[in-house]
């Protein structure tokens, strides 16, 4: 057996397989590590080794903001101002929407599209308006793709956006803590920390998160230059995004873009801690409905009715 001519003599099947295997393995490794090599070109080592948003000092954060502004200038050719807007003390945001008056015109979705620098090609927006049969609350049968005059007979319209849940399933599933709940109730995403696994998108019962399959394409003159680090700055490819109640506006006391755009005045926004606020009056005096209440997500977004 030990003097078998097959083993003694030169190349054989086993060696050939080893060589082919090794070549394929090396090739696969080179291919797999290609992003690392390419990514080094547009991403500095500081960016990779930086701290989590919550651990950043003011100086580090400012540096990051200026760098992002420079990158936006380079990629999109536009001067933008990116700011970090911290949560205000004594504010808990709440939002309510009157289903009795919504006509399904999608003006809110359009305002969101422009305000939050969404990809123009996909008409992306944080708001989906569901056309529903009157008398039904079956979201499965809701149609987002309607394209006829509204309001259509026998239908009602339910805009759905992030509910900023107090017990948010999307936050729980994030493996890298790239998404969290802020002190004023807003659930935010750090686009620079997100790894794009889309667990949160799958976990959200309101279908409120969006994935950036491509880098958003926006004509330079349509880019909203007033940007928040955690809200409407132009997202990179491969990260998840969501509605932030326009925190770059609302944390400065302004109303969200979707509310200002609504032609029927269906939307009510305000501070849940202020007993004199409009949102508190709605919650205390109207018939209020919480979408998928049985899931126990405790949303900050409420639907109400006039009758």
């Amino acid at each position, binding site marked *: 057996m030990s003097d078998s001519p097959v083993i003694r003599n030169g190349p054989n099947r086993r060696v050939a397989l080893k060589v082919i295997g090794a070549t394929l393995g090396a090739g696969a490794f080179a291919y797999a590590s290609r992003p690392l090599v390419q990514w080094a070109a547009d991403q500095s080592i500081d960016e990779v080794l930086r701290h989590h948003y919550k651990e950043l000092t003011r100086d580090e954060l400012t540096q990051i903001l200026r760098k992002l502004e420079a990158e936006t200038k380079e990629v999109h050719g536009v001067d933008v101002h990116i700011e970090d807007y911290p949560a205000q003390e*004594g504010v808990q945001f709440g939002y309510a929407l009157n289903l009795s008056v919504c006509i399904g015109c*999608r003006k809110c979705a359009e305002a969101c599209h422009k305000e939050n620098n969404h990809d123009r090609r996909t008409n992306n927006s944080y708001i989906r308006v569901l056309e529903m049969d009157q008398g039904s609350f079956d979201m499965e049968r809701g*149609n987002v793709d*309607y394209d006829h005059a*509204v309001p259509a007979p026998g239908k009602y319209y339910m805009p759905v956006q992030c509910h900023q849940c107090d017990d948010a399933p999307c936050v729980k599933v994030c493996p890298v803590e790239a998404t969290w709940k802020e002190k004023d109730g807003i659930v935010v995403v750090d686009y620079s920390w997100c790894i794009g696994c889309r667990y949160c998108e799958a976990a959200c019962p*309101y*279908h409120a998160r969006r994935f950036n399959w491509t880098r958003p394409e926006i004509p330079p003159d349509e880019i909203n230059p007033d940007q928040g680090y955690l809200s409407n700055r132009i997202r990179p490819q491969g990260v998840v995004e969501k509605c932030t109640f326009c925190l770059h506006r609302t944390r400065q006391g302004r109303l969200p873009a979707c509310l200002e755009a609504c032609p029927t005045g269906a939307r009510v926004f305000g501070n849940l801690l*202020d007993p004199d606020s409009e949102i508190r*009056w709605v919650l205390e005096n109207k018939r209020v409905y919480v979408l998928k209440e049985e899931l126990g997500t405790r949303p900050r977004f409420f639907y109400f009715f006039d009758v």
Partner: protein
Amino acid sequence: MLRVHWYLVVTGLLAAAGCRADRPERLRPAPGAKTGTVTIHIPDRLTSVPTGEVDALGKPLRASCVSCHSLRRPDALPASMAELDEFHGGLTFQHGELSCGSCHVVGDQSELRRADGTAIAMRDAMSLCAQCHGPQFRDYSHGAHGGMNGHWDLSAGDRVRNHCVDCHDPHMPAFQPSLPVLRPQDRGVRANRGEHPARAGHAEGAAR
């Protein structure tokens, strides 16, 4: 004089310490801080009519009511829409069983008349609407009806609220059907439409 000042100081201190202690800290504007105001927008429709023409910049030209009615004061209100002509011709009216005289005043284009006979300025039309639409007016008073612009936080800035007539045509107040904007074009809805071959058949469009 001095005693009055002393009382003022004590009252002020009491107010600062006790009253509205349940309110969050930041909602109390700092002394002397600018507090925003809420104003109600006055729609053009209350003071002018469209002419159908545009000016040199392409903006629609409107004719002020006064420009005709300062000279022409009709003796009676029309009995039906068919009698209306010139700028008022072609007016559609779908507002219950009301007649012109339910709201308008003969011979004065700048005033309206409430059911109890009191004349009110055109810009105050909201109190006239409220005579019949009580629940809407109640909701409006609490910020739960009607659109607005500006600030939710009045210590940060002002707010402008819509007038009834900004959104509702008083002669035809119901919203008329219109085409929606921004039809979604993401891969989910396109797959449902059968336009995205790679994912055709996968239903992702509806929220679930």
